[in-house]
């Protein structure tokens, strides 16, 4: 056996072991315990998958983003998703990213807001800043506006028996 073949064989065994380790870490990563979840926050690349699709809390409502400015106090919706998904979405669905992004941001922001002792610190959280930047780009289209505020609302989807309820209201921000 040549030296090259030996090296290849050793590397092959190491990579195979890494794959099994990855599988083991993936299995442990599914546990909801606090230490595991704390470690998961360090996994920025998302190497450890989350296989808990739509569980434990399924998305049973829609999220809406509205904003207003100091010149026009009426809330205006920023339409992030289409009200009806086209039939072709089973094959081609580019709009799902924006809808999912808004849903993820809303979920994280309400969690941060609920868990935080200092509500001012929420303004420095990543989901808050993501929404603020997004709303700011829309609100600044009103030439006379000097400040803006945004709100997240949630409803029960197609069951439109009741109006959407506010789940988060931001501070006022200078444009």
């Amino acid at each position, binding site marked *: 056996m040549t030296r090259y073949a030996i090296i290849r064989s050793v590397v092959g065994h190491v*990579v195979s072991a890494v794959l099994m380790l990855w599988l083991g870490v993936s299995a442990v990563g599914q546990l909801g315990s606090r230490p595991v979840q704390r470690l998961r926050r360090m996994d920025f690349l998302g190497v450890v998958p989350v296989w808990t699709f739509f569980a434990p809390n399924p*998305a049973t409502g829609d999220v809406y983003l509205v904003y207003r400015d100091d010149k026009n106090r009426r809330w205006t919706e920023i339409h992030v998703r289409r009200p009806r998904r086209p039939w072709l979405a089973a094959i081609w669905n580019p709009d*799902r990213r924006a809808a999912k992004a808004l849903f993820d941001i809303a979920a994280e922001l309400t969690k941060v807001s609920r868990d935080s002792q200092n509500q001012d610190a929420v303004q420095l959280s990543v989901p808050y800043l993501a929404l603020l930047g997004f709303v700011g780009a829309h609100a600044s289209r009103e030439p006379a506006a000097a400040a803006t505020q945004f709100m997240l609302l949630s409803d029960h989807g197609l069951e439109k028996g009741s109006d959407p309820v506010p789940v988060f209201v931001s501070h006022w921000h200078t444009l």
Partner: protein
Amino acid sequence: MKTDKSRRRTLDTVERLAAVSTLIASLELLARPRIHDDANLMSWQVSQLRSRRLLRGPIGRVFAHLLAIRMFRALLAFRVLGSLGLILGIVSGWKARAVKTTMAVSAFPVTLRSPYGWDGADQMSAITSVTLAARSWLPEIEPAVQRFFALQLCLSYLASGVAKANSPEWRSGSALTGIAGTEMYGNEEFYRWLQRHPSLAVLATRGVIVAECAFPLVLIAPRRLRHAILLCGILFHAVVARMMGLNTFFWSFVAVYPALENYCRSRETEIEEKGLARE
């Protein structure tokens, strides 16, 4: 020898099917380019604030270049061309290895750019592309790659089933109707149908839990039952794509099915051969 050949062919099929998922996902991101702008929901400028490591030091500098909007779009364009090359089989040898490696290296940074907007399909796609890139350099790890795919797929359904079994909404049977009633993942006709048949809605919701938890039985089931389970799994993904609009979920998960089937088949053959040797 025969097993090696069939495993190689199987992993080539996995590669092609997974490339379809990458192709669609990358084209969709390019079709909505504004969502990654600095003032949009998947802004890198904001999401890099998650960690100092993403902002400073050598790693921060690499990401700053790699994930800047123009470079990011170029990366997506490369992923489109790379997946097309793999699907059509027009790249081979060192060029194919280079393409697969670049696609694997770029798989996680694409999702790193923003923590929002991704789903399980993107995770499975990244896992598949990294593992298949490693296989292109080291064909001797093919048995481990096939086993990894088979077990990761079983783990995904099992974890999902257990998480649902722990959820009061899923256990009560209301989750499916709730999801079907949303604009984001719902479907009005399906929602109305579930509302008209509440007992079937409960049965279907609990059925999803049982089916996902029981999926790993595929590893020990006899051939016919195994094929029935796999067929149900493929149908499930097709229904999810149609009803919920999760199109890449179909491709990225179904891509790994051939690896699971071939893994089970080769284990079956091994057991049969051992039995014959004993006789």
